[in-house]
């Protein structure tokens, strides 16, 4: 008897940390999928048709049904493929804590994403001089709050294998795993063993996992891309 195979397609973009979150989630669950690289300046017809309201990546298409919005996709994956690792703890209160810190990282705009430009890390990347210095201070403050929160609510963090990985881990490694490239591109260090030891160690542990190494973006390629974004933006601002 033939087993009905699920058809999963991910529309993503190689430099997007949001797209990366979904890729990591799919690989952790052992889900085979087809990847469609989107050029954000020239989106495919199918992306526009399947995600007409937002027209954004990442977009997951499962057996023809589109699921949009990164967090909605991650929850959908965990609820549809119930194998290990489960992205959330069992207890509703613990689940609420995970959601809170994921929300903090998202709201406080601590990631550099090519898709949005007003995020604090985005501002750090796209500004210079005094404006950049101010944004750097803001960024440091947000990372300080995150560092305190992680230390307090998730003490003794140990990641030995895929089964220890949950939603917060996925968000942390996808968003901050590229910190070395970001530091190089903007010339400022935000994550390091002295100022953010909990976060630094958390990332180091996750980076050892084979599944994470599989989706790693080449450092130099990302640095070049981020520097290009920065130069383009500064030029536009100067000409305005």
């Amino acid at each position, binding site marked *: 008897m033939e087993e009905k195979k699920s058809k999963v397609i991910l529309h993503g973009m190689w430099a997007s940390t949001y797209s990366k979150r979904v890729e990591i989630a799919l690989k952790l669950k052992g889900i085979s999928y087809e990847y469609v690289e989107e050029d954000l300046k020239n989106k495919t017809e199918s992306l526009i048709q399947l995600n007409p*309201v*937002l027209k954004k990546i990442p977009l997951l298409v*499962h057996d023809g*049904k589109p*699921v*949009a*919005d990164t*967090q*909605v*996709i991650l*929850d*959908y994956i965990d*609820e*549809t493929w119930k194998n290990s690792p489960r992205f959330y703890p069992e207890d*509703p*209160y613990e*689940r*609420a804590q995970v*959601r*809170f810190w994921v*929300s*903090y990282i998202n709201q406080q705009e601590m990631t550099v994403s090519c898709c949005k430009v007003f995020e604090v890390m985005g501002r750090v990347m796209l500004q210079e001089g005094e404006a950049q210095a101010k944004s750097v201070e803001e960024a440091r403050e947000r990372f300080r*709050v995150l560092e305190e*929160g992680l230390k307090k609510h998730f003490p003794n963090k140990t990641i030995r294998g895929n089964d220890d990985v949950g939603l917060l881990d996925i968000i942390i490694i996808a968003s901050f795993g590229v910190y070395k490239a970001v530091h190089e591109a903007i010339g400022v260090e935000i994550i390091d063993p002295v100022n953010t030891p909990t976060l630094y160690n958390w990332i180091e542990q996750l980076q050892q996992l084979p599944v994470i190494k599989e989706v790693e973006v080449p450092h130099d390629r990302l640095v070049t891309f981020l520097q290009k974004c920065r130069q383009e933006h500064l030029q536009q601002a100067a000409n305005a």
Partner: protein
Amino acid sequence: MSEEKVVVLNFWPSMFGARVIMALEEKDIKFEYKEEDVFGDKTDLLLQSNPVHKKIPVLIHNGKPVCESNIILEYIDEVWNNDKTLRLLPSDPYEKAKCRFWADLIDKKVFDAGRRTWTKKGKEQEEAKREFIETLKVLETELGEKFYFGGNETISVVDLVLISYYPWFHTWETIGDFSLEDHTPKLMDWVRRCLARPPISKSLPDRLKILGRVSQIIKVHEFFYGY
């Protein structure tokens, strides 16, 4: 056996607080309401319960705080989940994903465009009005022929999230000088159906009170948003 103790910290005009209260009422969960003066002195309870953001709403369940309205709604639905209780999210993962998508979209688009219809002037105000009406039209299409966003039998988080903005519609319409009846009459029918549900009508702040407060704020040229 100790009793379940539920406390809600809120600020009366907040659409984020309103949806938490409606959820508790719809699920028939007893709770104690505490008003926070968010522009005056925040209570120690609020500062301790939400030290990171110091914002309302906060749900405190048997002494343990849960923050952020949409996180609170998920929590409420997960904890009070027996067969007899109304479910705010469907059990099918795809239907649930659609609910979460729309709830999220409403907060992203309605909040911001709505705020700009009363805080901005001229071209920016016109743009905000256009965006707000456009978003409601998209939502009207999504509602289609259904009684509620949750279906014909039941409401869902999407209904609660959108109706929580209703008391603010009157303010935005008045200051922006437009009427939603002209643009999205079917959605206004949905509004009336929601308001016919006591858990919703008794939990929403008075729209005239909100207009009064906003008018005062405009008068003294203060640019902050109450929530």
